[in-house]
């Protein structure tokens, strides 16, 4: 198709409102894809996605997107991180050196004014020493002045204290609060709640427990046994919201997956669609032109592939051979090229074959291949463009389907994979709707974008009814 024809088609396309909407959507998705590739390089994205927790340890688990707070009356907390290595975070550290031993005090003061409790509470340490590990005590000071000793421990070179899953602490706090209120607390109250709760009767029911707002402080007093010893610490008060898209069960920022899902979905879909359409067209043209044996052979091949159950075989291959998404693409193409499209195109080519200008080409001595590629295929090409565009959607969803069945690429973040994670972790039952809705929304959008443009193209290239 010449440039002029392209421009003409484009103009015709713009006459349809639906096509304009579709094109806008596609521009948006393309924009996302380009942004993803530029902002987060491929390797980094894969690494962040695969390593999950290790890389995203500072992120909360299953956090909703931050903008959710806009709609809620009870404001969900953001994550508060204080790191002695980062003075701006508000962490304070002081070492008083003595003759043989030194005393270290680390303070983490912060304000907590949210309406809901943190999801988790973790402390991370790095310590420098040669033989004797430093020894610390960790205290917690609530706005009402109550000081609670959390733990005493030695600090190894890298160490962590998962406060919210410390059972002993939980029991201790439950006892303490029960005494304070004068009644036994009837449920197992976790530390991240008891350390932040208003200490009155409201604490007796998990539905009524309130956040005590105000200034909190964690104080770590430690003894350094060696001259060169040092401790650095990071307190993470995990919130319940994170970023633009929230996080999943492995603390991964869903934005990575959502952004990168775009170029992957689009390239998978477009590559599959174009390869299959073109290969089918060439096969059909050869079959129609050469006739006889070539035709019969190709017809039988088409029937064979029609009986071969596409998805089950694809799944079987994916199960047994653990494929990456690009190998999967090749398999999909290989299984599809003898599909039903070949029959339709062949019918078209049989008609084209009879056209007088084909005969003319033969008489002036044009070779078979030349006729197929220069004369027959260009004639049929416009008719297949609509179905080419439309089928992109189905391939995007094919990849999503495989992911939902747990057979997608195990490494690469795709929208389908996110939905699969959400589904298997019971997102719908637990109310983590955003986890399912966000990738679904993008899938639907992409698919509709291609569909709207494809349908409009179909009306342009294949007008079946002349308007009266």
């Amino acid at each position, binding site marked *: 198709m010449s440039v002029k024809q392209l421009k003409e088609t484009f103009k015709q396309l713009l006459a349809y409102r639906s096509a304009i909407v579709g094109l806008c959507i596609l521009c948006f998705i393309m924009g996302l894809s380009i942004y993803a590739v530029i902002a987060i390089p491929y390797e980094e994205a894969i690494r962040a996605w695969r390593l999950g927790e290790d890389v995203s340890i500072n992120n909360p688990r299953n956090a909703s997107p931050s903008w959710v707070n806009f709609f809620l009356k009870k404001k969900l907390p953001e994550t508060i991180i204080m790191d002695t290595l980062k003075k701006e975070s508000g962490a304070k550290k002081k070492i008083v050196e003595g003759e043989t031993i030194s005393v270290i005090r680390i303070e983490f003061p912060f304000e907590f004014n949210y309406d809901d409790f943190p999801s988790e509470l973790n402390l991370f340490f790095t310590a420098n020493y040669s033989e004797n590990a430093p020894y610390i005590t960790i205290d917690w000071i609530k706005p009402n002045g109550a000081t609670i000793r959390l733990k005493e421990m030695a600090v190894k070179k890298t160490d962590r204290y998962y406060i919210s899953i410390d059972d002993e602490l939980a029991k201790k706090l439950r006892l303490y609060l029960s005494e304070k209120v004068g009644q036994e607390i009837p449920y197992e109250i976790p530390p991240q709640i008891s350390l932040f709760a208003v200490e009155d009767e409201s604490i007796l029911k998990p539905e009524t427990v309130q956040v005590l707002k105000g200034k909190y402080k964690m104080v770590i007093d430690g003894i350094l046994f060696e001259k060169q010893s040092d401790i650095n610490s990071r307190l993470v008060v995990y919130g319940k919201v994170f970023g633009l898209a929230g996080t999943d069960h492995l603390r991964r920022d869903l934005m990575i997956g959502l952004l990168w899902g775009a170029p992957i979905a689009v390239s998978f879909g477009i590559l599959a669609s174009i390869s299959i359409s073109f290969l089918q067209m060439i096969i059909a043209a050869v079959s129609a032109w050469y006739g006889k044996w070539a035709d019969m052979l190709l017809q039988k091949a088409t029937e064979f592939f029609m009986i071969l159950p596409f998805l089950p*075989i694809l799944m079987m291959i994916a199960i047994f051979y653990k494929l990456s998404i690009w190998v999967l693409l090749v398999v999909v193409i290989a299984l599809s090229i003898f599909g039903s499209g070949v029959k339709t195109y062949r019918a078209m080519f049989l008609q084209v074959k009879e056209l007088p200008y084909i005969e003319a080409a033969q008489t002036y001595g044009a070779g078979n291949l030349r006729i197929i590629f220069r004369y027959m295929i260009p004639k049929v090409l416009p008719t297949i463009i609509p179905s080419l565009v439309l089928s992109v959607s189905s391939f995007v969803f094919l990849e999503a389907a495989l992911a939902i069945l*747990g057979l997608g690429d195990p490494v690469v973040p795709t929208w389908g994979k996110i939905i699969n994670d959400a589904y298997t972790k019971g997102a719908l039952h637990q109310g983590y709707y955003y986890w399912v809705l966000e990738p679904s929304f993008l*899938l639907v959008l992409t698919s509709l974008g291609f569909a709207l443009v494809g349908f409009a193209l179909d009306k342009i290239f294949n007008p079946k009814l002349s308007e009266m």
Partner: protein
Amino acid sequence: MRRELFAFLKYAAKRTVTLIVVVILAIYATILVANMGGYVDEIIKAQTRDSIYTSVFQNPAYQHLSTEEKKQLAEQLYQIEIEALGLDKPFIYRSGGYLISALSLNLGRAIYLTSDSGSTAVRNIIAERLPATILLFTTINLTLFFISLVGGLFLSRKYASKLDKAVVTLSPLSSIPGWFYGIFLILIFAAWLGWLPYGGLVDVPPPTNPFDYALSILKHMVLPIFSWLVAYSFIQTYTKRTFFLMFSSEDYVEMAKAKGLPPRLIERRYILKPTLPPIITEFALTLIGSWMGAIVTERVFNWPGIGTLFYQAAVFMDSPVIIGEVTIYAYLLAITVFILDIVYAIVDPRIRIGVSGA
């Protein structure tokens, strides 16, 4: 009449032979693909080892032997058996045998999965699940077919009306597969509103009264059916309506009008009847497509059919079931294609008689 019947039988026979050949090739290809990872061999080896060990340990004649001795004996017998089965030879020689087993539906034993009745025979497991799939997807496809047929006819009479434009605008919804809508329908009707169940075949515990049981099944079928209706009814109605409009501008339709035939008769005999071949082609493609779409849909709705079975087998890597299922799918497709070819021949005399005719 006899001439027609003869031509018809010839056609049917030709199609049967072709399809049988194709099925054989397809299943053979499946076996080859499956074993390229050595899986079929692993299955056989594991099953053989299992059965020999069990028989040795349970055989009263060997009771007096120590565990060590029993193990040794079992190993020896196992080696003999392996040689006898030819598992020490390359795969190609054995693939023929597997092919025959698969064709006769002797599909072996599952590794992990069992049927509800306790059998591990793959054939039984699949047979147990097959009816559920057939029930759901036949219902879906027939419903879609009739809705779109009636809708298409209705719309073709009201060309360019508002309803027409509405259906055209909603057709792109079909780019999103039915199972995807399913997820959202579950979100809305099960999670949020709680009106309909999340999935499964019947309520748990299942009602004992057969009438209530049937009703329960119907209740569980609502969302899956609805999800496919949302996805595909618009485009199918639109396609049929376009067919009807195209076919109603044919010359013989005008001739029929000139003949003074009543409009209903014209619609039935001159528009509907000649349009049946492409409509049936479309139905064929949808039906075949739905066997595939079934897998994901069943997974989404936890519908206990062969689709979910496939998913479970994938999770457990239960290769005999996986291979057995692919075989069954090949058969299902072949049967579907065959039935549709026959219907095609019944409906279109050009196929029946062969275009060379007189």
